[in-house]
């Protein structure tokens, strides 16, 4: 085939493609007012799937509810959700597509820290507000002008736990077991970095892999025992912490077991069974709001409304991650209500930064120019597991 003919052919193909696509997709919605578009990137698949799935449900639920109640200033809210498959480069790609092609006014996402950071770079470059649902400490590194966060971070949870150990338990020697995944190493850094401030000592620090077998975990526990700790602090996501709880019980280790907010879900209790009893962990009030909150408080009402709606719509209990998605939508829509439905991206950002006292599922959000995390350790509570049920623990 000659070069010339090839080029002609290719140009024709290109033209044909554009023509088909433009005509095929030109149909508008025909509504009265332009919808407000919010772009969402989360992990529907890949390693962060357990986070992304409930987040997606909560976001879609929020979208339905706000549109049923008339939207914002008569404008519907349109949520466009993309999957990043827990992959940073796909998240970045998705963010660019949402910004450039869908012309969204704000971004939500993502579920995991890596994807969130790669989205953040696009959000910052394109000057578009982003509300993330990931907890990684380094998300706020560097320029955080455009990014806000809904979940409590390892810092809040870590400080809560350290205060609990110091004030409630009155113990000193911590044996730390952490998952070598990003969640675990994040917690490890916070615990090791702040233990001294609370007069505590980390006497063992063992990284394990989530896929470890029981006997593999026993190897780590043996190392832990030789360091003679007062308590065992486990920072990880399931199933590692459950295996550890079970093995500690089987081996007759009597030290208190303190978990992280990574086990603030029912599956920990399911996996660890009996061994879950006696475990204490920091969690959002969402989990045990009926037990710890005053039914007349604003927090109780906000959480109860969300939890009931979620149960009605999906037939299952809310979990923390669903809450993060819900809160992200809440913060953006509340800011839009204040800034007006036709607010520009930068006006919306300013409005989000002015968020004060917005009651979400994870706590009361207060953003300032210097703090885009919004929550404090007080938004977490220590939770006990007793008889396979969550109960409010002693608070430091």
């Amino acid at each position, binding site marked *: *085939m000659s*070069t010339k003919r*090839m*080029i002609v052919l*290719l*140009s024709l193909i*290109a*033209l044909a*493609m*554009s023509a088909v*696509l*433009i005509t*095929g*997709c*030109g149909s508008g919605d025909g509504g009265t007012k332009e919808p407000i578009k919010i772009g969402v990137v989360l992990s*529907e*698949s890949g*390693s962060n799937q357990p986070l992304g799935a409930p987040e997606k449900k909560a976001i879609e639920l929020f979208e339905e509810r706000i549109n049923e109640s008339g939207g914002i200033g008569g404008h519907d809210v349109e949520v466009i959700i*993309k*999957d990043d*498959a827990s*992959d*940073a*480069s796909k998240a*970045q*790609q998705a963010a*660019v*597509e949402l910004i*450039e*092609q*869908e*012309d969204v006014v704000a971004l939500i996402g993502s579920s995991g*820290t*890596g994807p969130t*950071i*790669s989205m953040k*770079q696009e959000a910052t470059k394109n000057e578009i507000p982003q509300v993330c649902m990931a907890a*990684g*400490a*380094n998300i706020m*590194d*560097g320029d955080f002008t455009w990014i806000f966060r809904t979940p409590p971070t390892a810092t809040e949870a870590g400080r809560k736990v350290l205060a609990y150990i110091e004030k409630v338990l009155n113990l000193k020697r911590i044996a730390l077991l952490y998952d*070598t*995944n*990003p969640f675990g*190493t*994040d917690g490890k850094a916070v615990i090791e970095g702040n233990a001294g401030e609370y007069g505590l000592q980390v006497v063992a620090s063992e990284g394990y892999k989530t896929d470890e077998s029981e006997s593999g975990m026993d190897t780590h526990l043996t190392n832990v025992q030789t360091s003679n700790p007062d308590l065992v602090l486990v920072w990880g996501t399931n199933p590692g912490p459950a295996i550890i709880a079970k093995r500690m019980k089987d081996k007759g280790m009597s030290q208190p077991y303190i978990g992280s907010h990574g086990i603030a879900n029912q599956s920990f209790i399911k996996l660890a069974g009996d061994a879950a009893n006696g475990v204490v962990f920091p969690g959002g009030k969402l989990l045990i709001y009926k037990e710890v909150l005053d039914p007349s408080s604003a927090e109780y009402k906000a959480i109860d409304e969300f939890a009931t709606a979620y149960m009605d719509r999906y037939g299952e209990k809310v979990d923390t991650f669903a809450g993060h998605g819900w809160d992200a939508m809440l913060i953006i829509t509340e800011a839009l209500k204040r800034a007006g439905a036709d607010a520009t991206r930068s006006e919306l950002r300013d409005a989000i930064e002015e968020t004060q006292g917005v009651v979400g599922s994870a706590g009361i959000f207060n953003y300032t120019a210097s703090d885009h995390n919004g929550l404090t350790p007080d938004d977490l509570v220590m939770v006990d597991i007793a008889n396979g049920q969550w109960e409010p623990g002693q608070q430091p």
Partner: protein
Amino acid sequence: MIGDDSKSQQQRPHARQGGASDRVLSFLKAHKALLIFAVFLGVMPVWAEPIASTIHLDIVLVMRLVGVFTIAAVGLNLLIGYAGQVSLGHSAFFGVGAYTSALIAVKAGFPVWIGIIMAILASALIGLLVAPVLRLKGHYLAMATLGLGIIAFVFMREMTWLTGGNLGVTSIPELSLPGVPKNDISEFYIVWIIALIILAFCSNLVRSRTGRAIRAIHQSDVAAAAMGINVSWEKIKIFMLSAALGGLAGGLYAHLQGYIDPNLFYITLSIQLVAMVVVGGMESIWGAVAGAGLLIFLPKIVETLPRWIGPGVPKPIADYSNYEGIVFGLILVLAMIFMPSGITRGLSDLVRYRRSPFINPFKKQAVE
């Protein structure tokens, strides 16, 4: 453009005996397919950018990644397709390249391109250091390289003082050239200019003396040695080149992403790269382009379908990301069974010989 694959080009060298004066002309002749492809890419932003928001797919943006993975895949194809040495550890070189380039730019503050060059050198050096595994053959080599990938991943994660561990490296500067505006389109051009140079380099290489030597080793290393070819050294050289291209791709990737962490360079990346090579076509330079393009575009297109068709899209397609592994696994198995020479060969056979590109594995074959 696909039809004009390396096989027919390989037949040409002896026929070309023109003087040194018309080098340019002979280059153009030898790389007709490449030039057509270059023109195609050159005009791509012109038609693809305006329709991006209409088709809900920014082709140029996706093509940047295709370019990066093409570089890595073509390097891996030299090793697997041409030299017949399976590596399941190329995520290591990709990762080493990415970290080298990123850290040199972020921590040492050197210009991006110094980092990229160091990425190439560093991964080639690592390739040389681990070259003893090339003494192994077949499955043994595959498993040993898989082990290398795991080791590299663990070190990237655990050497927190250097790599930042799971927190990764953030704020990696973008790819840019002096005097060129920084945006997605300029990055697209930068990546593809490099990729095209690599493609030209590699298609020359496989038709050269070195290329024949590695292909000979693939077919019979004993016979190749008997022809005076230093088999182990040729393998090491091609392994280093392959590692260097992996490092180059990794370096470019780091600057495109702006953020890297160890989990991006797990062995699933190696398997993806191998899949690009085998689905595209082993022993085919264009196979790398086709494989990278197909495997990167396929999920994007399926994901975009609901936006084209609207709410009526069937649930399995809307939930495609849940099925991606199934489709991906099936593609690999079926490609090996029915189209073992990859889509480029299969399709060009179809065009040239009007023959089905699929082979029938259930047909009785003579026992060798």
